[in-house]
């Protein structure tokens, strides 16, 4: 035993030998590997209605690998419809699913993801507003700093404002310094706000 001498080529699994099949139908197959391949295929060649079908499957899917393939497929499709079907998953109890849905939105082009996320800045649920800030803060878009500035200047919840500070500091946006000062004035008694604003200010300062 020990090191095995090489063979001609890797063995091909039975799944690889399968013929071409309607990917929308395959998405509901009993085999996880088939569903995973179907999701991957839909991500690269989406027929009409692929976004809705993927979202339906995602709601019921129990296999982590298939879920990931669906979420990645939606990120790759990156149509307004793909962004729209992901938004409801930001409200799910399942933190892994919620975070993965946000990650998919973040990986879409900004002009697709932003219209789906911006309305959430006015949502009554604080958590959804934080997710929206995290999503918008990671996008490469000329209005990104303005979106985050608006949050720091207007949002009534300090945690939403701090999420905006974090997004600004991570992406490096020294042009938003005045909004940071505004946030500090709005929450003068919050020690963590003062700390976060100071940290962001010093990371931009003198460069």
């Amino acid at each position, binding site marked *: 035993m020990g090191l095995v001498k*090489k063979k001609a080529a890797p063995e091909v699994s039975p799944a690889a030998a399968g013929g071409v099949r309607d990917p929308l139908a395959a998405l509901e197959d009993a085999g996880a590997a088939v569903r995973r391949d179907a999701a991957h295929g839909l991500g690269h060649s989406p027929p009409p209605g692929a976004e809705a079908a993927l979202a339906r499957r995602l709601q019921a899917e129990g296999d982590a690998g298939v879920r990931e393939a669906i979420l990645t497929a939606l990120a790759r499709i990156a149509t307004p419809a793909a962004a729209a079907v992901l938004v409801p998953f930001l409200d799910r109890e399942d933190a892994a699913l919620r975070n993965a849905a946000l990650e998919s939105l973040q*990986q879409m082009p900004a002009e697709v993801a932003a219209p789906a996320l911006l309305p959430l800045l006015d949502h009554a649920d604080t958590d959804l507003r934080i997710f929206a800030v995290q999503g918008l803060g990671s996008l490469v878009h000329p209005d990104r700093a303005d979106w985050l500035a608006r949050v720091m200047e207007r949002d009534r919840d300090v945690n939403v404002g701090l999420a905006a500070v974090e997004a600004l500091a*991570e*992406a490096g946006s020294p042009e938003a310094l005045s909004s940071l000062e505004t946030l500090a004035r709005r929450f003068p008694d919050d020690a963590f706000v003062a700390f976060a604003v100071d940290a962001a200010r010093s990371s931009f300062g003198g460069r």
Partner: protein
Amino acid sequence: MNGVSETDPQGLSPEDYATLCGFLRDRTGLSFTEAKRYFVDRRVAARMQAVGATDLRAYMNLLRFQASGEELQRLVNLMTVNETYFFREKYQFDCLVNSALDELVRGRPKGSRLRIWSAGCATGEEPYSIAIMLLENWSRVDDYEIELLASDIDSAVLERAREGIYDERALQGLPAHLRAKYFQPLRGAADDWGPRWQIVEDLRDSVDFSLVNLADPQQVRGFRGIDVIFCRNLLIYFDDLGRRETASMFHDALAPGGFVCLGHSESMSRMSSLFVPRRFPDAILYQKPVDGGAA
């Protein structure tokens, strides 16, 4: 400042090139002369495209101000990626033979198979290093059938990997007794390239090299039931979605409980939530949950 793109034959302007090189020199010590212009242009263009930076000013802002420093690390990795050699980042091979393999074979009968895949093997230093580490440092190597797979997207480097011929620089990290044991000097090879050595035939026959594009699911379907995947300093070439898809593909390829080993500056947590980080004494590996990760 100007933008750069794959289609822009001019790349960075002279001023922008000087600015970028000065910044890199200050931050990293890496020095790039005008002779390295094309090398730098291509890599900067690839990273700007990956992060969606529309011009060099935006990209420089990211490099300068990003709190995590992640993008600077990625760019640096791209600039140094050709520096491969035997036993590079050896602590990960130590982790393999000191911890991971013993855990993987726990409960497996003697004689069963272990599959190790070097994904993005380039000219072969990594899979051959794994082979040597197993033979030299894993006491149970003869108890199992160990299959070493290695793949790359570049057919030219695969051909060199199969030949297994290396110069002094590639062997710099190898102790002399291992060089004597596993390499043969090539007679009359002291030409413009300097002296060279070839991996012994027995070892060359133990690594199964194949041409594989990791981004194509059809090409990776043959890789199933893998116990350990080494994929180091390769995914820095991919964009976020590409990394996420590749991580998902590794998840499919691995046996339950199998491990992924990434480069020292790479983190699976930034790519995928399918894996669990495992801290061993020598290194951190990323493990596919034993239950496969069912939700």
